């Protein structure tokens, strides 16, 4: 008898007991759905973390002012205005492994271009900042040393600004006002996407630090603001990260005249570490959930076996009849094995679809990239098929071993 024929018989038998078949595979459905969902979420979270690390720029350290790092409550960074441009310059000058140390000063401000306006983050930087973040300019150019030194009214804008203020036009050469000060756009930044706080990194404009201090941010406050938001440091060698972190700590403590075991008035972050740790936590949670889901798969397999055993008993006469009209034991074995296999595979398929849907929903909610790995679906279906076979063998074997006469006599 051909396998196709066996499959036809099996699907008919299953179709005759639709509700029972559906309930039987529920365990497999739940298990497979959970596995597919968790693998996809894990992959998505992982991809999100690597993407964020990539857009961060390699070997990045952040020096933040004023966080109390010691025992006790940690105050929010930046509560104390303790970092200056001179600190940044000193770090760059004194430490061999520091490639750039870029100061940044920012605040949210309204932008106006023609009749459009938009509130965004205005950050004063020098061109080192773009080096530290490995941020490319896709259109136009970066600041010249002259512009940085003289406090020119030029601006580099993120891609969100181009869309919001210039309707997606090139942007370079146009004029926009920050507060009341007119600026000329000289460059447009490459897209970076969402940052660590799930805020678009492209919703930003950069102006020279001196301009920010003297004309924009300081002017708003009425005084010239010396204190920086943070200093971005690019370390030339990944292996020197923690050593450099310690050297920066020592250098700044000395510069800020902090003695003995008094707490620092600044903190140093390795943002990639934070992201990596978060990714690892998601992955660990995923592995735990997959382990739980595997239990559900085994339970699902047992329920497949249970129902197959009931089915064999119920259909004893049918089996006897089939044997009397010429079915070999192998035919009967295959019939029930294929039935179990189809049950489990359908459970696997439904579970894979549900799991993928759940993964999409969760990824969408969390703002992760959606990554349904075909590998996960193949694995889930393969595994459910394996369950169908391994838990179907015993019932099928029992069916095939029936004595046709006994089976026909069975009422």
């Amino acid at each position, binding site marked *: 008898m051909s396998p196709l024929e066996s499959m036809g018989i099996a699907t008919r038998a299953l179709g005759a007991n639709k509700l029972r078949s559906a309930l039987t595979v529920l365990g497999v459905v739940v298990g497979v759905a959970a596995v597919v969902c968790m693998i996809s979420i894990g992959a998505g979270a992982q991809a999100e973390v690597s993407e964020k690390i990539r857009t961060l720029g390699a070997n990045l350290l952040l020096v933040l002012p004023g966080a109390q790092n010691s025992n006790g409550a940690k105050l929010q960074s930046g509560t104390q205005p303790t970092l200056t441009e001179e600190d940044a310059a000193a770090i760059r000058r004194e430490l061999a492994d520091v490639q750039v140390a870029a100061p940044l000063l920012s605040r949210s401000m309204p932008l106006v271009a023609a009749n459009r306006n938009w509130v965004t983050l205005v950050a004063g930087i020098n061109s080192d900042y773009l080096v530290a973040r490995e941020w490319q300019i896709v259109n136009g150019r970066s600041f010249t040393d002259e512009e940085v030194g003289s406090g020119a009214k030029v601006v580099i804008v993120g891609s969100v600004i181009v869309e919001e203020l210039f309707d997606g036009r090139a942007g370079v050469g146009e004029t926009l006002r920050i507060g009341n000060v007119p600026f000329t756009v000289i460059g447009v930044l490459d897209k970076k996407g969402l940052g660590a706080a799930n805020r678009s990194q492209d919703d930003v404009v950069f102006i020279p630090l001196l301009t920010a201090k003297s004309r924009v941010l300081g002017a708003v406050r009425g005084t010239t603001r010396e204190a920086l938001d943070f200093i971005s440091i690019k370390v030339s060698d990944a292996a020197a990260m923690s050593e450099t972190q310690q050297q920066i700590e020592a250098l700044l403590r000395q510069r800020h005249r902090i003695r003995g075991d008094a707490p620092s008035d600044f903190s140093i972050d390795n943002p990639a570490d934070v992201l990596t740790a978060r990714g690892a936590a998601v992955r660990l949670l995923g592995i735990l959930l997959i382990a739980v889901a595997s239990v559900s798969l085994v339970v699902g397999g047992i329920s497949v076996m249970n129902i197959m055993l009931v089915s064999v008993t119920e259909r004893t006469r049918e089996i006897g009849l089939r044997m009397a009209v*010429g079915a070999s034991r192998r035919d009967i074995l295959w019939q029930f094995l294929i039935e179990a296999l189809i049950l489990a595979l359908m459970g696997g398929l439904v579970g894979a679809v549900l799991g993928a849907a759940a993964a999409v929903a969760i990824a969408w909610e969390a703002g992760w990239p959606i990554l349904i790995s075909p590998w996960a679906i193949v694995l889930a279906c393969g595994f459910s098929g394996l369950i169908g076979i391994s838990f179907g063998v015993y019932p099928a074997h029992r069916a095939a071993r029936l004595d046709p006469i006994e089976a026909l006599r069975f009422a």
Partner: protein
Amino acid sequence: MQPLLQTVGITKCYPSGATIIRAVSDVSLLVRHGEFVAIRGRSGSGKSTLMNLVGLLERPDSGEYFLQGQAVAKLSEEKRAAIRRQAIGFIFQLPVLLPRATALENIELPLIYAGVARSQRRRRAKDALDSVGLAERGHHWPSQLSGGEQQRVVIARAIVNDPALILADEPTGSLDSRTSDEILSLFEDLHRSGRTIIMVTHATNVADRAQRQIALHDGQILKDEATSPQGALAEFPE
């Protein structure tokens, strides 16, 4: 001409509690092509066991059995299944049909296991159904057919493979007398068209429809003779 089947002293025993019952004891039987044989006996006489042995559903404990010249008593289960599907058609007392298959699909069943192609299967099933007079009922479910009609479907299934031997175990056992008569007429028709039929029954009037009668008692052949027109076996201890 070679006989269709021949048993040489076949014996089959069953354990029954502490003792062993010889259900079929040293039976030698010869059936030629085209015969219509009734095996008669009371319940417990071993007639069903004999039919199961002849039908290769059971293996004798001793003795030899030749079917179409081939020694089949000691064949493996797989080989016996192969012979069953190619050479034997079964009819049981209760019309055993698959409840979720139509009449035609039920008739096709032996052809499926014999590996006949789908298109041919349907045609042969229709022919068989036609020959039992139910051509119009092919797409009915078994539950929509009367007992007599169901038994006709079973007969159609038994002949669809064009088997050398048809085995019927109490084929009228669950039918009323009028329907029984129709079924027996059908057997006579099949016999006239050249088929070999072995029928097991406990009823004299049913056995009388056969051309030859074998009386079984305690697992042994008591009498084996041609049916006489007036029912010559009246003295058989009923």
